[in-house]
């Protein structure tokens, strides 16, 4: 498994009308690595992540997940819905707005896919869902509805929901951006422990500290292109790159000054 790539993108283009958001992205996501996508707002990082889940349909280029084309094949034929769903099964997603289903409890949210997609018996689904809630430290909140949970707790339930389907790769779309600062820590800790367990993760984030300490692979996007890419230590050791320097300087007051030496 380790020699095949988790996700590959070749020449991926995304347009909204006349606005080209992604201008030909080539990127490899390796198994067992944490890849962080950083960049100024409007650089296309969330769009890129959503393309990896086929929540946005790329206009050109090829995306492969675990070797299989996602959404369109190499000849740009649209793949059938069942094939899209099959390839997507490799991927879990965690959203900025959590997107927990408000009419289900925390346990219900995590168990839903197990029941409806994997068709597990109720009891088995609940046991497995409970195990995942325990992993994110929320076993005692299983019967709570999302509206009764804090933002940080909701996001941890959302992580448990994604993990319950046993994905090979988890995509995080600014997972802490809608949280109060004092709640980001609990979510980042869960993500860090996932990374320690060797989960393949792609994280769009503004948490430069997290990117610097947890990511093996750092991608700096600017104006819809990969401006800089490499091992996290190497990328942050190159603050001479004018756009990266400019970007990081906006984070000086958020404690990123250490990175600039």
């Amino acid at each position, binding site marked *: 498994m380790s020699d095949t790539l988790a996700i590959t993108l070749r020449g991926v283009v995304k347009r909204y009308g006349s606005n080209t958001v992604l201008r030909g992205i080539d990127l490899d996501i390796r198994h067992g690595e944490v890849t962080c996508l950083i960049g100024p707002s409007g650089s296309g990082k969330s769009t890129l992540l959503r393309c990896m889940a086929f*929540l946005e349909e790329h206009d050109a280029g090829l995306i492969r997940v675990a070797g299989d084309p996602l959404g369109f094949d190499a000849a740009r034929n649209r793949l059938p819905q069942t094939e899209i769903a099959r390839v997507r099964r490799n*991927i879990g997603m965690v959203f900025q707005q959590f997107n927990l*289903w*408000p*009419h289900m409890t925390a346990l219900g949210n995590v168990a*839903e*896919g197990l029941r409806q997609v994997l068709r597990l018996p109720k009891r088995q689904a609940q046991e497995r869902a409970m195990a995942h809630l325990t992993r994110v430290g929320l076993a005692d909140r299983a019967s709570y509805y999302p*509206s009764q949970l804090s933002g940080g707790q909701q996001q941890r339930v959302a992580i448990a929901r994604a993990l*319950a*389907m046993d994905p090979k790769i988890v995509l995080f779309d600014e997972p802490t951006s809608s949280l109060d600062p004092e709640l980001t820590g609990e979510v980042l800790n869960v993500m860090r422990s996932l990374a320690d367990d060797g989960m393949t993760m792609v994280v769009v984030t503004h948490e430069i500290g997290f990117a610097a300490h947890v990511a093996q692979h750092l991608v700096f996007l600017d104006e819809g292109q990969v401006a800089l890419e490499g091992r996290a230590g190497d990328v942050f050791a190159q603050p001479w790159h004018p756009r990266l320097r400019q970007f990081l300087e906006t984070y000086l007051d958020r404690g990123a000054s250490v990175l600039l030496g």
Partner: protein
Amino acid sequence: MTWELVVLLGWGAVMTAALSIVSITVGLAIGVLICAASLSRVAPLKWFGRVYVSFFRGVPLLVLLLLIYHVLPQLGLDVPGVVAALIGLTLCTSAYQAETLRGGFVNVAPGLMEAGRMVGLNARQILLRIRAPIALRLTLPALVNEAIMILKASSLVSVVGVGDLTRTAQNLASSTFLPLEMFAVAGAYYLLLNIVVGYGGSGLGRLLGLRPA
């Protein structure tokens, strides 16, 4: 004012309740279909839904009732006033309920459906397990409101000769020369019925496991 009169008015209230219950439930069923048509990607269906809603929402219920009452005999359908009243109330409320439901459906946050796609739910499961229950949760208060509106608007059916609560009160008022008492009791009956509807609505919400946001 005797208990006898209160009981007579009570029978009028039963008629009002029956008309309202039938038109609300049948109207909801039609409303679901019209809502589905309005949200459909098939242009003629969408068009039909839109026209249906704007027609039955745009024509005053009083005019609609008189229209149905006079049109049906012309078509050779000699129906009693009760049937004309039921048709009018049902068509009217179905348009409002269709529009309320449509509003609920389009207001379900897209991210909630995306989350469904990402755990692997298919389109049907996303509709039945996520979109519809959340839309219902968003619209239940408005649907209860609509039930109360129809219950009160049903007083208009007296124009097609149906002996509902208002009509009974009018008749008794002129035969007993006690208009104040009759309309006061009729008002109390309407109030009572609507309190029941209100409580019924919250009970239904709990039964369906709907929670405030």
